[in-house]
C-alpha cells in the first residue's frame, strides 16, 4: 500500500460523505413534492408530463397498484428496447449500417432485459453491434428509466416505514417522473458537460479511420458518448458505450474523470440513506444504514487494493518488479490502465460491484484471486454496499428487516424497526427475495459448470457450457460464478474470460437479471404495503436502538453471514482455492 493509494481511497470516501447529506435532503424534498431550487425551472416540465400522459399527481396507489405499474412499465420498456435493436436498420443515426444480423434474438432479449433491469450486462460489444440511435433512444433512455424505477421502489419502501396506518405507498408514475426530471436529468447534464470538457466525445460521426505511427490503419469508433456516460454512472447502470467501458479513453480519459465517475456511482445510493433518515423523521437511522454500508465497503476496497498492490508471487519469482517505486506502480498491473494505476482501479472495481453499477475501468478477470474475490463477494451480498440507485437502499432495508428480526428478539420485545412491527409477512417477503436470488446464482452457476452439449449446438455452439471459458481450473469457476452473480445482482460488470454471447448464457443470464430485479422488488413492495398499514410505535428505552454502532455492526454482520453464507462453498472452490494455488505457483 502506498500513501497516494491510501489517500485516493480516503479522499474519495470523504467526498461521498460530504455529498450524502445535501443530496439526500434534496431527494427527500423532491419525492415529498416540496419546493426545491429547481422547481421554478422544472415544475412546469413535470406538470406538462402529467398533463400529456394523464397522470393524476395526487392519486396514491396501494402496493399492488404500485407494483403493477412498475411491472407494466418494465414490460413496455423491454418490448420497445427489443424491437429497437431488432429493427435498428430502419432507423437513422446508423453510420456503420448495423442491422438485425448484428443482434440475434437471444442477444436482443438479453440486452433488453439487461438495460430494463438496470443491470447493463453487455453480451455485445457496443461499437460493433448497435447504431447510435439504439444507443441513445434505447439504451440511454433505459439508463434513466430503470434508475428512476429503482429509486421509486426505494422511496415507496421508505414510505411504508414512515407513514402511519396508510393504505397507499405513493404513485409510481409520479415518483418515476420526479426522479427523472429533478434528479437524474439535471445532474447528468452537468456531468456530461464536465466529461466533454475533459475529452469525452459527443458526436454522430462515422467511425474514424486513422493512420497509426507504424503506418497501419486503425478504425476508431465515434458516437454520442458523453450523454450516455454520465447517466451510466449516476444511474448505477454501467453499460458502456464501448466494449472497453470506462477503461476506454473516450469514456474515461483522465484521473479526474475517473474520480468524478466514481463519485457519480455512489452519489445517489449514499444520498438515499440520508433521504431514508429524513423521511422517517430520524436522520440517525439513515446514517446507521450509511455506516453499515461503509464498513462493508472500506475493508473490501482496501483488501482489493492491497491484494493488487502486493502483486503476484509467480511474477515476483521470475524477477518482475512487484514493489512500488517513484517510476513504477509495482503490483499487478495486468488489465489496468496506466493512467489510473492500482489504487484507482481497485477502488473503481470495489465501487462498481458494491453499487450494482457494473462500469469497469480495469479487467477484473486479471485481478489476483483475492482482488477478484472482493467484486464477487460484493455482488453476492445482493448489492447492498451502497448498491444501485434505489436498489442499494431497499436491499439494505431487506437485511435490516432480517437483522432486526433475528437479533431484535434479544432485547425481549417482538422485533420492530423504525417503529413498525416486523412480523410474518415481512419476514416471508425478505426470505422469498433471498431464496430467489440465491437460487438464481447457485443453480445457473452449477448448471453451467457441468452442462454438456454437443459442439455446434444452437443453444451453445462451443459445446459444453465450460467451453466458453478462456481459463480453466478454479478461475474458470470464478468466471461463471461472476457472470451469474453479476446478472442476479443486476450489476452488469463482467469478469471477462467468458464468452457469454451464446443462447445458453444470453437466456440464463437474462433470467438471472429478471429474478434479481423483480423477485426483490415485488416482495419488498408487498412488505412496504404491509408496513404502511401498521401503526408506528413510539420508541422507548426498551426498544431496540437501530441507530448506534451496535446495530450497524449487527446489520453488516447479517449481510455477511445471511447474505453470503450460502456462497461460501462456491467461493472456496473458486477464488479461495485459486489464491492458495497461486502461492503454490500455479496459475490458470
Amino acid at each position, binding site marked *: 500500500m502506498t500513501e497516494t493509494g491510501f489517500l485516493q481511497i480516503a479522499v474519495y470516501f470523504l467526498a461521498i460523505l460530504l455529498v450524502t447529506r445535501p443530496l439526500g435532503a434534496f431527494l427527500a424534498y423532491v419525492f415529498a413534492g416540496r419546493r426545491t431550487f429547481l422547481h421554478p425551472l422544472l415544475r412546469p416540465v413535470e406538470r406538462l408530463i402529467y398533463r400529456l400522459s394523464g397522470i393524476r399527481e395526487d392519486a396514491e396507489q396501494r402496493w399492488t397498484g404500485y407494483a403493477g405499474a412498475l411491472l407494466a412499465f418494465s414490460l413496455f420498456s423491454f418490448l420497445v428496447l427489443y424491437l429497437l435493436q431488432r429493427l435498428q436498420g430502419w432507423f437513422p443515426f446508423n453510420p456503420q449500417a448495423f442491422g438485425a444480423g448484428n443482434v440475434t434474438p437471444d442477444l436482443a432479449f438479453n440486452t433488453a432485459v439487461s438495460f430494463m433491469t438496470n443491470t447493463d450486462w453487455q453480451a455485445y460489444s457496443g461499437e460493433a453491434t448497435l447504431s447510435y440511435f439504439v444507443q441513445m433512444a434505447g439504451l440511454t433512455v433505459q439508463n434513466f428509466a430503470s434508475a428512476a424505477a429503482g429509486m421509486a421502489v426505494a422511496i415507496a419502501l421508505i414510505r411504508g416505514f414512515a407513514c402511519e396506518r396508510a393504505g397507499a405507498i405513493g404513485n409510481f408514475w409520479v415518483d418515476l417522473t420526479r426522479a427523472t426530471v429533478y434528479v437524474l436529468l439535471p445532474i447528468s447534464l452537468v456531468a456530461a458537460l464536465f466529461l466533454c470538457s475533459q475529452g469525452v466525445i459527443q458526436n454522430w460521426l462515422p467511425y474514424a479511420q486513422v493512420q497509426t505511427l507504424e503506418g497501419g490503419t486503425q478504425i476508431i469508433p465515434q458516437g454520442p458518448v458523453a450523454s450516455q456516460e454520465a447517466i451510466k454512472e449516476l444511474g448505477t447502470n454501467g453499460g458502456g458505450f464501448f466494449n472497453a467501458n470506462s477503461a476506454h479513453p473516450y469514456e474515461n480519459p483522465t484521473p479526474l474523470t475517473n474520480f468524478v465517475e466514481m463519485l457519480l456511482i455512489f452519489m445517489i445510493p449514499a444520498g438515499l440513506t440520508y433521504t431514508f433518515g429524513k423521511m422517517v423523521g430520524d436522520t440517525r437511522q439513515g446514517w446507521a444504514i450509511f455506516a453499515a454500508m461503509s464498513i462493508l465497503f472500506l475493508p473490501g476496497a482496501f483488501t482489493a487494493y492491497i491484494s493488487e498492490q502486493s502483486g503476484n508471487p509467480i511474477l515476483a519469482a521470475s524477477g518482475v518488479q512487484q514493489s512500488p517505486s517513484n517510476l513504477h506502480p509495482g503490483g499487478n498491473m495486468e488489465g489496468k490502465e496506466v493512467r489510473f494505476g492500482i489504487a484507482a482501479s481497485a477502488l473503481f472495481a470495489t465501487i462498481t460491484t458494491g453499487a450494482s453499477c457494473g462500469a469497469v475501468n480495469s479487467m477484473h478477470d486479471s485481478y489476483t484471486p483475492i482482488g477478484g474475490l472482493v467484486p464477487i463477494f460484493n455482488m453476492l451480498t445482493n448489492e447492498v454496499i451502497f448498491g444501485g440507485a434505489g436498489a442499494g437502499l431497499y436491499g439494505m432495508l431487506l437485511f435490516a428487516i432480517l437483522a432486526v428480526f433475528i437479533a431484535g428478539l*434479544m*432485547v425481549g*420485545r417482538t422485533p420492530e424497526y423504525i417503529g413498525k412491527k416486523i412480523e410474518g409477512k415481512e419476514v416471508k417477503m425478505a426470505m422469498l427475495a433471498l431464496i430467489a436470488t440465491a437460487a438464481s446464482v447457485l443453480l445457473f452457476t452449477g448448471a453451467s*459448470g*457441468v452442462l454438456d452439449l454437443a459442439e455446434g449446438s444452437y443453444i451453445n455452439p462451443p459445446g459444453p457450457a465450460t467451453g466458453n471459458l478462456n481459463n480453466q*481450473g478454479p478461475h474458470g469457476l470464478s468466471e461463471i460464478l461472476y457472470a451469474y452473480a453479476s446478472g442476479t445482482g443486476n450489476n452488469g460488470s463482467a469478469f471477462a474470460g467468458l464468452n457469454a454471447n451464446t443462447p445458453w448464457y444470453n437466456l440464463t443470464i437474462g433470467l438471472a437479471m429478471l429474478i434479481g430485479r423483480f423477485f426483490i422488488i415485488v416482495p419488498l413492495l408487498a412488505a412496504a404495503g404491509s408496513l404502511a398499514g401498521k401503526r408506528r410505535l413510539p420508541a422507548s428505552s426498551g*426498544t431496540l*436502538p437501530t441507530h448506534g454502532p451496535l446495530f450497524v455492526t449487527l446489520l453488516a454482520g447479517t449481510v455477511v453471514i445471511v447474505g453470503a453464507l450460502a*456462497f461460501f462453498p462456491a467461493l472456496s472452490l473458486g477464488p479461495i482455492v485459486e489464491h492458495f494455488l497461486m502461492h503454490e505457483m500455479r496459475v490458470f
Partner: protein
Amino acid sequence: MPKKMARSRPLFDRQILGRALTDALRKLNPLSLFRNPVIFVVEIGAVLTTLLLARDLAISAPGAGFALQINLWLWFTVLFANSAEALAEARGKAQADSLRKTRTDSIAKRLAGGRVERVPSSQLRAGDLVLVEAGDLIPGDGEVVDGIATVDESVITGESAPVIRESGGDRSAVTGGTKVLSDWIRVRIVSNPGETFLDRMIALVEGARRQKTPNEIALNILIAGLTAIFLLAVATLAPFAEYSIAAAGAGSVPSTTVLVALLVCLIPTTIGGLLSAIGIAGMDRVMQHNVLAMSGKAVEAAGDVNSLLLDKTGTITMGDRQAVEFLPVAGVSERDLADAAQLSSLADETPEGRSVVVLAKQKYNLRGREVGEHNAVFIPFSAYSRMSGVDLDGRRLRKGASDAIGAFVRERGGRIPQEFAEISERISRGGGTPLAVADGGKVLGFIHLKDIVKGGMPQRIGHLRKMGIRTVMITGDNPLTAAAIAIEAGVDDFLAQATPRDKLDYIRREQAEGRLVAMTGDGTNDAPALAQADVGLAMNTGTMAAKEAGNMVDLDSNPTKLIEVVAIGKQLLITRGALTTFSIANDVAKYFAIIPAMFMTAYPVLGKLNVMGLATPQSAVLSAVIFNALIIVALVPLALRGVRYRPSAAAPLLRRNLLVYGLGGLVVPFPGIWAIDRLLVLMGLV
C-alpha cells in the same frame, strides 16, 4: 405463610424424562414432524442416508463404518430435537395429570322447583342452580347467588388457606372441583361440562390447544427460508465438485451421505429443534408463578408491554395505612402526644390503630399498658362521632378526623391553636391522612397516617422504566393524595379517583398512541378494561366475568405478579432470539470443518482452511455432525429455563446478548468440533 403445593419441579425428573423419550420416538412420524420444517429435512436426510447405508452394506462397499456413524448421529439429531419438545410438553402433562385427578365426577344437588335432586355433575348445564354444603365438592364453575361459605381452592391455587365465597360483590365466583369446608352456598352454574375452568386449564398445560404465536410463526418462516437457501447451497455443491474434479484432474465427488451431513450442519437445527420447547416452557414458567395464561400469545404480548396499569392498594402500597409520625401542636411534647395517642388506640384493633401503638413503642419505648386497672372506658369509633378513644383516670383521650376533634375540643371550652389547620393541611398535601388527638379540651396534635409503599417497589418501578415500560398508578384517592404517593413510588403517571370507565378510556388512549397496555383487575366492572388491555391479568378471587375478560388469571391473586409476567414474556423472546442468533453464527465454524474435508482430494491446498487441524476428512465431517447434535441437548436446559434475564434498557441488553450468543455462537464450535475430533481419534472411531 400458607403451604404451597409444589408447582415448580426439577428440570429433569425420571418420570417426566421417561415420558419425554417415548414421545420423542412417537414424534418421528413424518406427518407430525412435517410442521417443523427444519427437523423434517433432517429426518428426510436420515432416511436417505439409511437407505444408502443399506445399499452399501448389501454390496459390502468400503467406508460403511463412517456412513453408519453419520447415519446414527443424524437420527440422534432428530431424536434430540424431538425430545426437547417432548420434554417441555411432558412437564405440562405431568401438571395436567395432577389436575385431572381432582376432576372426579361428583354428585351435584340440583335445585329444581324447590326440590333437591341428585345428579352427576357431568349432567349440569349452564344456568342450573345447585346447592353445595360443607364437605361437598363444587360441581362446576359458577356464581354464588345465595349464602356464604369457606372454600378450599388449593386444587387450583395451591394455596391451602380457605377463602370466603359469598353472593354479590367481587367474591362470588366459585370454581368446579374446589371444596366447601363450612356453611353452604347456592350456586348458579355458568359453564357446560368440558368447558369449565379446570378443563381449559388442563388443555392449556397439556399443550393440546397450543397454537403457534405470531412471532413463532414468523421465526419458523425465517428458519424454513434459511433451510431452503442451504439446501440450494449444498445441492449445487455436487456440480461445483464435478467441475472442480474435472478441472483438478483428481478427487471424487462427495458422497450423498457427506452432502446430507453438511446440509444438516448448516440448517438451523438448534433453533429449529428448540423453538417449540421454548414456547411451551415459557407457558410453563408462567404457570410456576401460579399464573394461568390463556394463550402463548398473551405471554408474548407481556414481553411487549409499554404501559403497566397498577392498582395502588395492594400492588404499590400495603393494603392499610400506617402511623408514621406524631406532630404535636405548640406547647405539647411529642412524647406526651405519642403517649396519649397510644392510650387512645390500645383497644383499637384496626391496622391503623395497631400501627399507632407500634410507632409510639418504637419511638419512645412506650409499652402497651394494661389499662383495665385504671377504670378505663373505651369509646369505639362510630360513624356519627367519627372519633374513638378512651376515658381513664378522668382523662378523655380522643383521636379522629380534624373537624370532629375540633368540635369535641370546642364543646369542652378548649381553644383551637392556629397551627391546627396548618398541620392538618400539610399532612394532606403530602398524601397522608391527618388524625387529630385531643385530651378533653386540649388539642395535643396529630398522628400522620400514611399509605406505605411496599418495600422495593420504587426499585422495581425503576427497573421497569429502564426496560422502557411506563407504570401508571390507578387509585380511588383524590388527586392530591394520589400525586404524593405517585411521587414516592416513582410511577410515571397516575389516574386518581379512577372509575372503571376512566380505566377503559385510559387504556384506549394509550393504545391509540401505539402502546401495549397490561393491567390487573378483579371486579366485574373491571371486565371491559381487562378485555381491552393487551395483557389482562385477572385475580382468581375475582368474579367470573373478570376472569373471562382477562387473558391471564393469577391463582394467588397477587397483583404485583404482573411485573413477573412481563419479565417472563421478555425472557421468552430473548431466549428465542439468542438461540436463533447462536444457531446461525455456528455455521461459520462448520463450513471450516467440512469444506476442506470435502475437497481435500481435489484440492489438497484447501487443507489451509482446516484451521482446526481436524485429523481426517471423515473425522472432520463426523465431528461437525456430532457437535451439531450435541449442541441441541446442551441447550435444552437453556431453552426450558430461559436465558438469564436482568431488567435493563434495550441497548445494554442487546450488547450483552450479542456478545454471548452472537460472538459465542461464532467461536464456541471451533474448540467444540476440535475436541470431538480428538475424542474420535482417541476412541479409534475414525
